[in-house]
């Protein structure tokens, strides 16, 4: 098969950050009409490569050719005008504007300087219908789910005469049906000859949609492969540079010891968020929550952490009735919560890794009792190496870290508090296989050490692997509580989620 000439070719790309070599001599090419997966662990250089390509960063070495011509983009806008459009993991649209406005923002159809609203709405509808979407284009974007917002971002991207479409983890917050819809859209774009660069941590999705993949490790190129010629096991091995039996090691965990109940929620609920539910978490127990996006998983977590007020019901900790009015009071009772929304609800991007890690401990002590600097360094160094946070520089601004490492910083923040109940909301979302295994192993160790964990994840395998018992949610209601014994399989979980009843 004679391969068509690549539409995009990057060769010998190098990029240096203070103290880190983010990319070193990386080659990459993209053929028209293919879906090309960019694979690698967190910090392998995927995001940097994309940012170099789209003009967010300068390159220090190497060159980029688009359709045979050498280019250097000074800004994402310049890249977009040349036909390279990007849709990021976190939707970068204006939620308060309408769908149509979002699609046409900055390039509204005008006549005599006046915006032609009617034409704009009609064209927006056309564009969306090409992607099999039927939306009210004059409704504010915020009235649609994250998945739909993502599709709108893609619609906007491809309408700008895109030759290359970059999708940076578009599926990390979508459920299965939405992923299928996205893939349908991607296949259609592919038929139109658009080259798609796809980044995802879900291996199954990579194998379903991509034709070819390029693997990076530690900022260097491992190689380019046809997806059909590389098995999943080989892929993972190449990504992390070692065989991955780690994930399997967790199988056959000892059952939780008979322990005292730590947190008991009785008919706890909040109107519009979650129907009253009853749930008991014992010391050393991992309780998984399974359910679709928006089924009320996060809402349960927020009630147990005092981030929202419960409207009904009662909460007992150590058998004593408590009312958690603020996160602060939950922290005082040794409950910790890692939000799924790292950027908005977790990290302070302008502070350093060290400051982010000690933040919760400092908050608990109050500002009049500062943590001595030596103690801070000790704690931070300990967790940077225990969680393998890279780069291992405590004075690095947290905004400069990759997603997985940011997640670890957030985990470290809570772990130094030595909580009794750790609530993890999608801790492995958008994280590569290696870091995922590390975090799963950590959860197992913590629970063996007596810490209770509430583990929320969209990946049922993961929930099953870690949990002692699984709460199943559907439509903002806790519909079932299943013990994780031999009989519980992902199929049975899926069925319970789908039917809303214990099978």
């Amino acid at each position, binding site marked *: 098969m004679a391969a068509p000439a690549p539409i995009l070719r990057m060769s010998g790309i190098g990029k*240096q950050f203070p103290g880190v070599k983010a990319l070193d001599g990386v080659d990459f090419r993209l053929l028209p009409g293919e879906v090309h997966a960019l694979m690698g662990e967190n910090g392998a250089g995927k995001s940097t490569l994309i940012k170099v390509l789209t003009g967010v960063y300068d390159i220090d070495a190497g060159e980029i050719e688009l359709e045979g011509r050498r280019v250097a983009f000074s800004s994402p806008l310049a890249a977009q005008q040349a036909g390279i459009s990007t849709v990021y993991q976190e939707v970068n649209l204006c939620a308060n504007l309408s769908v149509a406005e979002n699609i046409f923002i900055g390039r509204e159809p005008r006549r005599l300087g006046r915006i032609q609203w009617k034409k704009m709405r009609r064209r927006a509808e056309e564009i969306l219908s090409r992607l099999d979407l039927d939306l009210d284009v004059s409704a504010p974007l915020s009235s649609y789910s994250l998945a739909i917002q993502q599709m709108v971002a893609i619609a906007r991207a491809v309408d700008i005469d895109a030759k290359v479409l970059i999708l940076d983890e578009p599926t990390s917050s979508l459920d299965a049906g939405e992923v299928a819809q996205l893939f349908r859209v991607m296949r259609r774009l592919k038929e139109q000859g658009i080259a798609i660069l796809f980044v995802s941590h879900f291996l199954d999705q990579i194998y379903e949609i991509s034709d070819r993949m390029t693997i990076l490790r530690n900022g260097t190129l491992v190689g380019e492969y046809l997806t059909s010629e590389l098995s999943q096991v080989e892929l993972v091995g190449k990504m992390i540079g070692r065989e991955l039996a780690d994930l399997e090691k967790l199988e056959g965990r000892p059952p939780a010891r008979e322990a005292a109940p730590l947190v008991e929620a009785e008919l706890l609920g909040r109107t519009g968020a979650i129907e009253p539910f009853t749930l008991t978490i014992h010391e050393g127990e991992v309780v998984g929550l399974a359910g679709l996006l928006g089924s009320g998983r996060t809402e349960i977590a927020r009630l147990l952490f005092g981030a929202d007020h419960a409207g009904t019901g009662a909460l007992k900790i150590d058998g004593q009735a408590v009312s958690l009015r603020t996160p602060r009071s939950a922290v005082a009772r040794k409950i910790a919560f890692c939000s799924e929304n790292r950027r908005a*609800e977790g990290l302070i991007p302008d502070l350093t890794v060290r400051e982010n890690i000690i933040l919760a401990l400092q908050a608990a002590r109050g500002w009049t009792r*500062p943590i001595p600097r030596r103690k801070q360094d000790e704690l931070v160094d300990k967790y940077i190496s225990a969680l393998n946070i890279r780069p291992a520089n405590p004075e690095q601004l947290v905004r400069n870290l990759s997603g997985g490492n940011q997640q670890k910083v957030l985990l470290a923040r809570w772990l130094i508090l030595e909580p009794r109940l750790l609530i993890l909301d999608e801790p492995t979302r958008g994280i590569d296989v290696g870091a995922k295994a590390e975090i799963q192993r950590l959860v197992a160790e913590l629970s063996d050490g007596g810490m209770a964990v509430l583990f929320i994840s969209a990946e049922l395998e993961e929930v099953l692997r870690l949990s002692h018992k699984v709460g199943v949610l559907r439509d903002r209601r806790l519909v079932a509580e299943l013990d994780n014994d031999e009989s519980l399989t992902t199929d049975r979980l899926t069925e319970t989620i789908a039917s809303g009843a214990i099978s």
Partner: protein
Amino acid sequence: MTRFLRHRLFWPVAILVALLALNLVFTDNFFRVQMKDGHLYGSLIDIVRFGAPLILVSLGMTLVIATSGIDLSVGSVVAIAGALACLQISDLGDQNSIGGVLGAVGIALALSVVLGVWNGLLVAGIGIQPIIATLILMVAGRGLAQLITDGQITTVNSSPYKLIGGGYWLTLPFSIIIVAVVLALTAFLTRRLALGLLIESVGGNAEASRLSGISARGVLITVYTFCALCAGIAGLMISSNVSSADGNNAGLWIELDAILAVVIGGTSLAGGRFSLGGTVLGALIIQTLTTTIYSIGVPPETTLLFKALVVTIVCLLQSPAFREKVFHRRRRPQAPSPVTEEKVRVSA
């Protein structure tokens, strides 16, 4: 050299030095500091002395701005504190009684604290946007100050009170000593204790801070209270220097100068990281500018225009984006020539 250039206080220092150098050209002996009657005299001393109230107000403003808030009411608090202190002192039988003056100062500062708590409650408790919440006190407070002084200028004749803004102690103007103490105290609270970290955290991401167990409400009330207290002290200084209280004009527009000082000092109006040293430099730059305008003889009718011009230049020089544009214009070749072009960049 590059490290020196990249230091975040490089530009404020450079601007201050440039302004001082300008003065040296126009005024002989500008840098001369001499001893008269056991007191230090000189233009440099005057700049710090007259700038003292602005430095105080700016310090409080820095912390408020670091939480991504703003306090427009400081000018009114300046007027209220001065008015109340002068009213109390003028009612004293013996205006020179130290106890009486201390009592008046205490009452004025206590009211400032109450006003700060009020601002803090509006912002943190009710959740009104800071600019609106403090606008209330900015307008109402001016009225309150006039109410206290009955719309008149209240004059006092009290030597202990005069010390605060116009007196000397240990050869230095007393106001400079007050500023030094407040600055040291602020630095201690924010940098030695952990208040600074919590303020920067709340300013950087309020929701994430709340979910980390920080009492954002407590932090906000603390900074607004601190800001009003600083404004109160500044108010005492201003009224003491002229031995009178003017409810209409004391501290008028000082909030704008203070915001400007904070911004020149490199603290972002979006909140987050703040720099106390930068703010002090910023306030000194503004005061030096005022002095410069007089010393180089800018015609009075163009004073405001001249000031605006300099401030614009200062702000532009402070902006990394602007410097990037002007000083590195040829950094990114738009259409790269086939000639292999070495891109030399100092540690990106």
